[in-house]
């Protein structure tokens, strides 16, 4: 039964008509009234920048906040591989329904039909919009757009710009945002961090932000506040997120009443550069697109793996018949392009069994040799070379590989010092994305009226596992094509609300609370750095709430985190002062929030007695080691309400599948 606290507001009617009908009937705000309505947007990534540009174009007064020095540096910039859209340009049988179906199945049947169908529907408009504003996607010689495949699909629906798709999409959205800044419709607050949500009688009315250069706290009123602040993967310390990526905006909202949904649904990406030592500050992704042409393997024989670890042999010394292409072996239908959760677990399984190939034993190979030769032969044929020698074939094949993945290969070489054209890459799974986030209804509004969450900051579309190239799609869908409509259903009732002066007692109180928590951090004057605590938390999370979880581990993680949190508030040292540019203070506030969130992630994982998508509970698996869902008892969204004293109450939203017949998720 869905909890009485939850109303997802999915429109009635059949799936194909829901969004169309909604758009035609949602209340509107006339242009004159839009000019008096103020919207605050926190975060300037794909969701935030696209929402800011679109809402400002409609006439709303918009303020955008980001902690970076420019909106262009939001972490969407680092997305590599691509963006999905059901264009069916390749004539390979794609459709809105198929994208919808792949996404629901990819998420292991833990997302809403209504939201995901809408996402698939608007996906095509995103590509149109991006091309129109000058995003230079990859093209074929005929001048039309090129596509490639991503995991969990059997069609080619991914649009891309080399390995820098996120960069190009973000710079597109950013250019739209800056156009509005230039015309005075958007006021930009870079180097500002939101530190609280202001509510008046349960309705969201603004935020408290800190100017990171001067340290001054500021009060900002808004008729609506949109949190587009990204995911919380940095709870693990090591992740592919940017160093500054954090949960603070979402967490402050949570502590002001917004429900936090499915916090334990974390995506561990299978292809990242392995950890090289204790100094490591972050992990680097190698795009999923590489699995189009890279084959994943480990040695069949343990003694070969041992020799590799001890650097006594090179990967190319291992004969073809002694290699285990374990994804192709276990999942012949999807092969190397199984979804991320499946590929990550399979890598862990092989490494745990003693087949890891680097000095730490936590790495597998991603090998391009086979497809380099294949491309080389194709090129030779094109050029009419009938009996090419091996050197020629390799040379021509490498040129093709370079054209497709050049920047990724360069990045790999810079980081590891190893040339991946000569030797296979070594990769291992790493924390990459969080499917969980603030609970939102169909309008993308949290349960706090006027407070919205878009993009990775919300929980809505990816269930328990996100498919590759779908984060960019969702971020831009939310910002360009969903919020401009859905915000009208709320703001049409707000046209009589005059801007509330920020000397209102609610603003003063919120600012005072922020001020005292900053003062409290400085007052500790302990002996340990913020990073000390962050790294400790990260290890607990990775070992006990990472790729595999179990009851015992989660229980001990919860008490360890509680203990660590206590220690943090007694022993942390924050240098400098509050009235200056102070990166250590920023980090301290963020880690304090991670120390609470980490506990909730473990609690959520502990309460979900099943395995689904990225959430793998060791107690619940099939004989073949696949995730075993329990639809009878866990086909719900777990939405947690924050209670006094770092405690939570669980509310459930039942997931209803009217259109998809849910089944065991198989990629075999």
């Amino acid at each position, binding site marked *: 039964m869905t909890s009485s606290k939850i109303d997802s507001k999915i429109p009635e009617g059949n799936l194909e008509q829901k969004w169309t009908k909604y758009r035609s009937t949602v209340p509107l705000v006339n242009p004159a009234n839009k000019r008096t309505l103020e919207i605050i947007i926190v975060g300037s990534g794909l969701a935030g920048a696209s929402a800011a540009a*679109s809402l400002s*174009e409609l006439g709303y007064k918009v303020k955008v906040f980001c902690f970076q*020095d*420019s909106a*262009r*540096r939001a*972490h969407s*910039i*680092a997305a590599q591989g691509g963006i999905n859209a059901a*264009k069916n*340009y390749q004539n390979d049988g794609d459709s809105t329904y198929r994208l919808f179906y792949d996404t629901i199945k990819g998420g292991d049947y833990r997302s809403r039909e209504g939201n995901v169908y809408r996402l698939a529907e608007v996906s095509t408009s995103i590509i*149109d*919009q*991006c*091309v*129109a*504003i*000058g995003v*230079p*996607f*990859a*093209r*074929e010689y005929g001048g*039309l*757009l090129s596509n490639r495949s991503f995991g969990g699909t059997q069609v080619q629906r991914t649009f891309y*710009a*080399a390995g*820098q798709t996120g*960069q*190009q999409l973000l*710079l597109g959205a950013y*250019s739209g945002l*800056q*156009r509005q*800044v*230039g015309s005075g419709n958007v006021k930009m607050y*870079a180097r500002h961090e939101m530190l609280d949500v202001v509510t008046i009688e349960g309705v969201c009315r603004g935020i408290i932000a800190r100017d990171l250069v001067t340290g001054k706290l500021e009060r900002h009123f808004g008729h609506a506040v949109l949190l587009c602040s990204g995911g919380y993967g940095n709870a693990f310390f090591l992740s592919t997120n*940017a*160093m500054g990526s954090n949960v603070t905006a979402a967490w402050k909202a949570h502590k002001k009443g917004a429900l936090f949904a499915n916090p334990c649904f974390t995506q561990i990406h299978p292809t990242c550069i392995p950890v*090289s*030592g204790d*100094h490591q*500050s*972050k992990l*680097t*992704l190698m795009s999923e697109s590489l699995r189009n042409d890279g084959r994943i393997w480990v040695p069949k024989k343990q003694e070969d793996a041992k020799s590799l670890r001890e650097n006594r042999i090179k990967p190319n010394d291992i004969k073809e018949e002694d290699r285990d292409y374990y994804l192709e072996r276990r999942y012949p239908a999807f092969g190397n392009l199984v979804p991320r959760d499946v590929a990550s677990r399979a890598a862990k399984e092989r490494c745990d069994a003693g087949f890891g190939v680097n000095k730490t034993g936590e790495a597998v190979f991603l090998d391009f040799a086979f497809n380099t030769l294949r491309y080389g032969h194709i090129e030779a044929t094109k050029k009419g070379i009938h009996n090419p020698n091996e050197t020629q074939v390799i040379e021509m094949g490498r040129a093709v590989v370079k054209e497709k993945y050049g920047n990724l*290969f360069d*990045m790999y*070489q*810079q*980081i590891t*010092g*190893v*040339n991946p054209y000569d030797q296979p890459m070594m990769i291992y799974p790493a924390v990459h994305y969080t499917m969980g986030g603030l609970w939102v209804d169909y309008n993308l509004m949290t349960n706090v009226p006027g407070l919205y969450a878009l993009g990775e900051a919300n929980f809505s579309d990816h269930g328990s596992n996100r498919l590759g190239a779908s984060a960019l799609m969702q971020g831009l869908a939310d910002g*360009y094509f969903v919020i401009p409509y859905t915000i009208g259903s709320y703001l049409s009732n707000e046209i009589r609300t005059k801007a509330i002066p920020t000397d209102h007692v609610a603003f003063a109180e919120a600012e005072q609370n922020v001020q005292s928590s900053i003062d409290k951090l400085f007052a500790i004057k302990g002996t340990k*750095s913020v990073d000390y605590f962050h790294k400790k938390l990260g290890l607990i999370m990775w070992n006990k709430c990472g790729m595999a979880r179990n009851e015992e581990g989660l229980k001990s993680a919860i008490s360890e985190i509680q203990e660590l949190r206590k220690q943090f508030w007694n022993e942390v*040292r924050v*240098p400098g002062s509050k009235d*200056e540019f102070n*990166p250590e203070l920023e980090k301290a506030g963020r880690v304090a929030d991670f120390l609470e969130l980490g506990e909730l992630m473990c609690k959520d994982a502990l309460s979900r007695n099943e395995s689904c998508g990225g959430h793998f509970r060791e107690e619940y698996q099939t004989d073949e080691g696949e995730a075993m869902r329990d639809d009878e008892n866990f086909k719900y969204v777990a939405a947690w309400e924050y209670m006094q004293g770092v405690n939570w109450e669980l509310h459930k939203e039942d997931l209803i599948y009217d259109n998809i017949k849910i089944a065991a998720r198989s990629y075999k």
Partner: protein
Amino acid sequence: MSSEKIIMEKNLNLNLKVWRQKNASDKGKFEEYKVNDISTDMSFLEMFDVLNERLNNEGKDPVAFDHDCREGICGSCSMYINGRPHGPKQTTTCQLHMRSFNDGDTIVVEPWRAQPFPVIKDLVVDRSAFDRIISSGGFISVNTGNAQDANAIPIPKDAADESFAAAACIGCGACVAACKNASAMLFVSAKVSQLALLPQGMPERKKRVMEMVAQMDAEGFGACTNTGACSAECPKEISLSNIARMNREYIVAELSSDSK
């Protein structure tokens, strides 16, 4: 990229001379630090993490520096190392690894030095001038929802590739820092080129270049004297030919009556 031999991990002891400046109005000075036992597998920023952890433990103020993605794409990590933006390799500071240095080296680290990029603290500078230049014209004025089908206008692959190569600019400001005139021509021309190469960019072509150049001048960036240091230091290898293209675009716009 040419094949490099595998360099095995080892540890370095280094002398650092780091620019310390409390805030914009402080005069600033170099301070010297010794860091020991630095793994050659570390990135340059991870070496700074080690230094900061130590300063923190000694009760001193850590060095402030901008950084975020640490994978060479956000453009934050502006450090001027041994007289070159981002140091000895043509990459970002976060992608510079300590295997590029030798045991016993002295490394001098400064912020970007350019009048339009005032220092905020230590190695952190204010690059908002770049945002204002983009706001002046670095866009295509198409509102959300107006677009036709993405494949309606074919674009020759060569033009799309060239446009992409210009669009790969990460807005780090190394071009300005490298230039003896503190010119922003490479940055501005990359955006002008990206959009001038695409049919979608045509309607605003003349207005764009005029307004972006005007804003660039208003921000106080210097003129271009064709030295090419910008492109030589650019971590994304943005080509100098973009500047030539921008000059052509500017002349065409200047000479045509409809842009006045």
